[in-house]
């Protein structure tokens, strides 16, 4: 079957993937072919959120899609969230401050997901618990919006506090 040579835009950099088998998922392309190992492979079937990255500002599971489908799109991973001078993104800072992790495996996905979630929330997107107008970002509203990210260590208390602090900024 024909191989493909194409470019991915990741964190503002152009990455050329040469002679790639079309079977390579976006996650495997990011990790194994671009050397950006922040996004994690937890389940490889859409069930955990560890592979979450942002595409054109929206959060997606990079494990359930082909790299080829994302040619030319604006992809952002956990490696691309900090400022050029190394200062952390507000969500990264808040996760450190509130112990939003134990082993850290789910953390890149949690943080990328939270970045996407706050953008959705601020744009007025509803959730399954939203009744009419979009409600305050706390309790069930926050849990529902972050339900796509599992934490095997159960660091949810710190994760919630971190996101709420970053949301208030």
């Amino acid at each position, binding site marked *: *079957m*024909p191989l*493909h040579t194409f470019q991915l835009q990741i964190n503002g950099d152009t990455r050329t993937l040469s002679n790639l*088998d*079309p*079977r390579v*998922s976006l996650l495997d392309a990011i990790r194994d072919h671009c050397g950006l190992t922040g996004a994690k492979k937890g389940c*490889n*079937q*859409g069930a955990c*959120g560890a592979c*979450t990255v942002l595409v054109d500002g*929206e*959060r*997606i*599971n990079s494990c*359930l*899609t*082909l790299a*080829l*489908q994302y040619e030319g799109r604006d992809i952002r991973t956990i490696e691309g969230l900090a400022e050029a001078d190394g200062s952390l993104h507000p969500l990264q800072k808040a996760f450190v401050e509130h112990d939003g992790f134990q082993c850290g495996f789910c953390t890149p996905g949690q943080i990328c*997901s939270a970045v*996407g*979630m706050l953008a*959705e929330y601020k*744009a*007025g*997107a*509803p*959730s*399954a618990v*939203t009744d009419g107008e979009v409600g305050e970002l706390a309790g069930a509203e926050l*849990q*529902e*919006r972050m*339900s*796509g*990210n599992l934490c095997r260590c159960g660091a949810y208390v710190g994760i919630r506090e971190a996101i709420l602090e970053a949301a208030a900024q």
Partner: protein
Amino acid sequence: MNSFSYARASESPDLAVALLNENQGRYLAGGTNLIDLMREEIETPAALVDISRLPLAQIEEREGGLRIGATVKNSHCAAHPLVRDRYPLLSSAILHGASAQLRNMATTGGNLMQRTRCYYFYDTASRCNKRTPGSGCDAAQGFHRIHAILGTSPHCIATHPSDMCVALTALDATVQVTGPDGERSIAFGDFHRLPGNTPHVETELRAGELITAVDLPASSANLPSIYRKVRDRASYAFALVSVGAALRVEDGRIADVRIALGGVAHKPWRASIAEQMLHGAEPTEANFRQAAEAELTPATPGHDNAFKVELAQRMIASVLQELAEVKA
């Protein structure tokens, strides 16, 4: 995963149809179901035609209703002001499915075409008539807590897993398709099939046909509605039973009622028996319960999923009662 060729059709639906028919493959939209099934080698297409960039990502007003393009992301559909305003049942049903990340990938067309979550279908060591026609059905005597109770056949008791499709059934949507033989429309209620003798044939879509849009009619706009889903955890799980219902009461009588169920059948289940009994009747708790019981009378549960019968009855009655109280 088997090896396959990849081509992207970005310009027009006709190009996608032509590419697919040249290559004997499958359309690829968000990938959230197809890539998973290919990884498990349940689907092994020789070619994929990527339709995710087709110019079908719009939601437009049309004949007093709405046309939702086939490549509109589920999340965009749920958040669209016209959908939220006129068809809140659709918005709610979508938001009750999957996760935010998946809804940002999943498309209208892919949601309709997603396949069952029957564990035996996913396990290539099991017998499954849907995966390998004629091989048998290991769910029948196996663990079938999540399986169907209505419209089943001895050949398959799988359910259709979509939440979105439950709302589309209740809202009398129409599916627009194009293919090698031209364009046609399919009423939503006819789109998905019951298993019968051919559980591997899941929809009315013919080989090579492409879904281009789903239309919502003016007649089902602005109805008071509720989508309720019962599942094993509060979020990010498929339905055990879900109910999408809409109710309009005029002068103390039911003027319009729509009830659809998810998690109970091989297709999104329109509760026509209950609807017929309720049309023109008084919106009382007793009438709701009676209609719900009549709808579930033909149910044929197995040893693990009998709970769904009572659950579905209670859910239908309580959702309708809530809608009646809001109106009162």
